């Protein structure tokens, strides 16, 4: 009751008439007020609603395990994280792997490599594909998060999550993509199949990099909200929605290379709408996550 009294009594009607996100901030604040943060609730919330940008970093950090659920230990843990960051950075500097001139993204990569023990012998060694993925994600993240420590940590944990938690589900995504595309627009799929472009779609860009570098960050972070909160299926719907949105253009192209090329460089202007529609589509097909709060 206290929660309800704190919330706006109109909140019930906002959703009815289609306003979204009015009361979300408040409910999120209520969620964040708990001493021991309920991670599950946070997950559900972020799956269901777009996160307010001022709380995004915090929520992400909590969800990714960078910060513990206890508020008390946040400062201490953060101190540790900072220390670790500076230590690693220092070490890298000591071994002259990085310098002040090194781009921040590469610094993050080296740090990550160092921490994961995959630091190559020399910085001049060619980058592996996973490093490219990291770089892309880090680049996108750099735009989203201001603090470099946070950025590093979030990037690191995000990539870790991709590599650990989604290790099994990521390869399944292309199949799921085909399935949902068939449901939504079978003609488009048949066209793609006819062009034999299905297998050559930019799955790496979409699913491994999570659209980093494909969508502008402002819309990408909404996708990543979902990814961070534990659902990688949203990536499939974003991909489907991209195809649906650019259906006419895709239908006009009948060469798989051209299609791939086009899809790798889709116009940025409609990305917000794409993401919104994709989220709707996702909710439609996978159901709205139950908000226990």
């Amino acid at each position, binding site marked *: 009751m206290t929660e309800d009294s704190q919330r706006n009594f109109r909140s019930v009607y906002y959703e009815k008439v289609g306003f979204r996100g009015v009361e979300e901030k408040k409910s999120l604040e209520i969620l964040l007020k708990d001493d021991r943060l309920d991670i599950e609730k946070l997950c559900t919330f972020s799956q269901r609603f777009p996160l307010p940008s001022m709380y995004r970093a915090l929520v992400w950090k909590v969800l990714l395990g960078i910060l513990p659920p206890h508020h008390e*230990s946040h400062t201490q*843990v953060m101190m540790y994280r900072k220390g670790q960051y500076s230590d690693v950075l220092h070490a890298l500097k000591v071994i002259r792997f990085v310098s002040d001139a090194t781009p921040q993204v590469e610094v993050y990569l080296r740090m990550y490599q160092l921490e994961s023990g995959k630091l190559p012998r020399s910085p001049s060694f060619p980058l592996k594909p996973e490093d490219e993925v990291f770089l892309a994600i880090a680049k996108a993240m750099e735009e989203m998060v201001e603090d470099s420590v946070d950025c590093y940590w979030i990037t690191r944990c995000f990539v870790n999550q991709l590599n650990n938690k989604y290790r099994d589900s990521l390869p399944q995504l292309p199949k799921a993509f085909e399935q949902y595309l068939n449901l939504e627009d079978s003609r488009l799929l048949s066209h793609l199949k006819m062009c034999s472009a299905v297998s050559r779609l930019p799955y790496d860009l979409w699913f491994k990099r999570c659209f980093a570098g494909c969508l502008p960050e402002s819309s990408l972070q909404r996708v990543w909200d979902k990814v961070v909160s534990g659902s990688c299926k949203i990536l499939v719907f974003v991909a489907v929605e991209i195809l649906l949105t650019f259906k006419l253009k895709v239908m006009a192209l009948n060469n798989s290379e051209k299609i791939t090329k086009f899809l790798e460089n889709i116009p940025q202007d409609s990305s917000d709408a794409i993401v919104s529609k994709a989220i709707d589509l996702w909710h439609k097909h996978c159901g709205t996550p139950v908000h226990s709060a």
Partner: protein
Amino acid sequence: MAQQANLGELLSMLDSPVLSVRDDVTAIFKENLNADRGPMLVNTLVDYYLETSSQQVLHILTTLQEPHDKHLLDKMNEYVGKATSRLSTLSLLGHAIRLQPPWKHKLSQAPLLPSLLKCLKVDTDVIVLTTGVLVLITMLPMIPQAGKQHLHDFFDIFGRLSSWCLKKPGHVAEIYLVHLHASVYALFHRLYGMYPCNFVSFLRSHYSMKENLETFEEVVKPMMEHVRIHPELVTGSKDHELDPRRWKKLETHDVVIECAKISLDPTEASYEDGYSVSHQNSARLPPRSADVTASPYVDTQNSFGSVTSTPHSVSRPMSSTPGQLPPPLSSPAPRLSAEAPQATLWSPSLMCGMATPPTSPGNVPPDCPQPCSKAFGALAGGKGTPSGTPATSPPPAPLCHSDDCVHVPLPPPTAAPPRKEERTDPARPCLHRQHHLPNDRGLEELPGGKGAVTLSDLPGFLGGLASEEDSIEKDNEEAAIYKELSEITTADTEPLVPRGGFDSPFYQDSLLGCPRKTPSATTSAQGASVHPEPLNASLDKLGPDTPKQAFTPIELPGGGRDQSPAGSGEHQTPLETRILTPSPFRVPSQRGAGFGSGQPPPYDHLFEVALPKTAHHFISKKTKELVKKMPGNAEEACAPSASPLEVLDRLIQQGADAHGKELSRLSLPSKSVDWTHFGGSPPSDEIRTLRNQLLLLHNQLLYERFKRQQHAVRNRRLLRRVIRAAALEEHNAAMKDQLKLQEKDIQIWKVSLQKEQARYSQLQEQRDTVVAQLHSQIRQLQHDREEFYNQSQELQTKLEDCRNMVAELRLELKKANSKVCHTELLLSQVSQKLSNSESVQQQMEFLNRQLLVLGEVNELYLEQLQNKHSDTTKEVEVMKAAYRKELEKHRSHALQQSQRLDTSQRRVLELEAQLAKKDHLLVEQKKYLEDVKLQARGQLQAAESRYEAQKRITQVFELEVLDLYGRLGKDGLLKKLEVEKTEAAEAAEERLDCCNDSCSDPVRGHSDTVSGHNGETRPPRPGSTRGSGGRGGGGSSSSSSSSQLSTPEKPPTQRAGPFSSRWETATGEPSTSIPTTVGSLPSSKSFLGMKARELFRNKSESQCDEDGVTISSLSETLKTGVDMGMEAKTPLSPDGPRPAPPSPDSVGQLRIMDYNEAHQEHS
């Protein structure tokens, strides 16, 4: 030729005085004509006639049959062209056409007509002209549609002759002009009557020319004044009046009558009763007619008239005595009513023409003019008809007379009012609703009209009305008036005997048919004696009023008769004149009276009156035209205005008078004197003039006779219609009789019906009474029945009661029986009980006895028992007390116990609560602990990750170090190391020596702790101290370092010499850093340190000590390496030769061996 001669003979025989011969010859001619179709015979006849003017030939010629007409016409055409025979030919033609031969329609096509017209146009002989014009006038109605082509010829002729009348070209005698004028006047009437539109337009065009203007003023205009406006002028058009369809319906006499209708001249028009008289009527009854015309009722009446007129008109002839009406009124009524149905029901010309048996006109007129005229005279004289007025036609005469007889008793002075009243009164019962309207209207307006128009005012009033009246309106008026009259008469005559009324006029008419015709035909002749009076009247008021004045005499007789009923003509006329004519005209009136008595006045008087100068004064006030004419020629001026016919009449009359006078005097000179008066012609010419005049008169007479014939034909038709109407009326009456009979039948039936009804009602009553009686009987019987029914019911109830009683009694019987049975049973029971009680008594006694015995035994036992009780009571009491105490004790104990239990229970509860609390607390604690644990784990994880990072860092560093190291080795540092190696070996030896004493214990002690772990490494060490210098050096270095750490000594510095100094200098700086780095080693005692050590151990699988040694040695070597790298040159200069050359090899070997050993150990 024989035939020719025969013809001549026959022709001469025609005029034989013997009648039989004449007839025979005529028959022969007719046979010849029938047999021969050639023109010869006709030609011969014509020639013969022109020579002799034989009456018999004329008769034959005029009755020529069809094929010969052409020859006749041709022949006549031939002779007309010749001036000498023209006159006789024309007269022959006149004779022929007057008889209306069957071929008359061919006249229009015949060449004779154009030649006749031509002759009329060019001829200058007045006699010929007059004859020709009369012939033409006679011919015109016969060929109405044919006149179309010659219309302009007719008009031209009219124009020529009318101008002739005025201009008098040359020597033409005045006498002739009078005749010519009369004929022109007749032509005018004919043309105007037949082709009004064309004629008027001709007049307009012809007389608009200046040269003709005078003619118009003098001649034509007065003629115009004698005609009314032709209806065709309003309704028709030029083309319409030439339309053959218009003429097809009309026969010759119809045309003639049509023309006569137009005329206002009494001499011309009065012959036609239907039109002009009706007009007089309407004019004479101004108030009523005006009302009727004014009211919209006229139309309805007209439209209705077509339906209703027949019965009225049929019934009307019955009204022989419409007594209230004055004769002049009633007289037109029959005729009008006869015409009314004619107009509406059947086409008059056809029906009448078919119906009337044509009385051979050829025979009658010539045969009996004289007796007829005589008869008329007798009639007129004897019956006192208004003979003085030619306007009133003879037919009304008998009617008037009969009317008069009826009318006598009526009050004379109020003739008009009663007429009005009686007109309205009988009108009311009329069946037609519309009649009320006109009647009421008549009632309202009649008095005013009557009051306003007195007899004296009448002429003026009439004049105003007449000028207003339109021809169409007149028609309407007439129709309305006829309607009214017929209604009035029928209404009046209804109660009267119809047959008599019907018969009398009918038979009178039929009887008078012949005489009546003759007077009308011979009016011209009679007119001479009859006319003076109206002439005077018309003379009195010249100008536009003339026609009305001409009519007024008709009214006057009515008025006069009112005052003097059944008065003779002699008495009438004076009265009229006295009333009507103003004072200056008394003389003519007296003369009229004189004439009426048969005494002709002196000639001078008459002449004076005929051309009165006084009249001019009177007239000049009214009409300027007449004033204009006056100075010209009084005679000429007066003549046209007084109607040419009248003038002619007068002329003849004068001639007759003069002739009579002269004859009486028998003096020729006076005669000659008189003749000079006529035109001043010399006596030698007089005979011729007189002959011509006679001829002209004859022509005129023939023309008038023709007209009379036409009228006769018409009259026959009308009569036929009357007969028809009468027949219908009769039929109607018969129907009415039948109706009455049927009504009577109905009455009888009704009476019988009533009787039957009465009988029926009687029977009904009888039946009712019988029914009532029966009903009462039934009621009585029913009552009886009810009574019986009640009785039986009572009896039944009684029976019921009895039955009930029987049943009750039976029940009682049963009860009694049962009671008896019961008592018997009881008795037996009682007896049984009695026996039982006896046995019980016996038992009781026995038992009592036993009881007594037992009581005794009991007493005995009681005694025994009392004896025993005295010992046990004490014990029992004591025991009781003990028990009681014990009980109490136990009770208190139990109480205590229970209290204790309570407290313990409470305590247990408390404890339990505490326990729960503690549990809760515990849980909380646990939770908290968990929380904390989690928190700690989070922190720990962070720390661990940090540590991990640190480890990675370290590894990286290590790698880097190794890398560097490897690079160092690669970079040819080996050479420098050779020098140093010897020194290092020496130093190591020294160090070993001095350190073995002092530092063995701590090293050993220290190594003991880890000996367990690295036990195997130890044995080789002593052996290798010597054997492997490099290694020993390494161990010494480590020991030294450790000793340095543990016990900071100076010996190395002291002993080192250059080396040590160098060492110190080399380590001077890092000495501060080394402790820190090594200083971290003590922290290895902490958790992290231990962990780290374990980690290291695990990784490198080397001893802890040795690790530390290796680390230190490593660092040392590193530093030394560095130092050596740094100071490779400085020591070389003084000490370069000192180190043994093999030493670097050994050192290198050592190192390699060391590695190898380590390798081996590891493997």
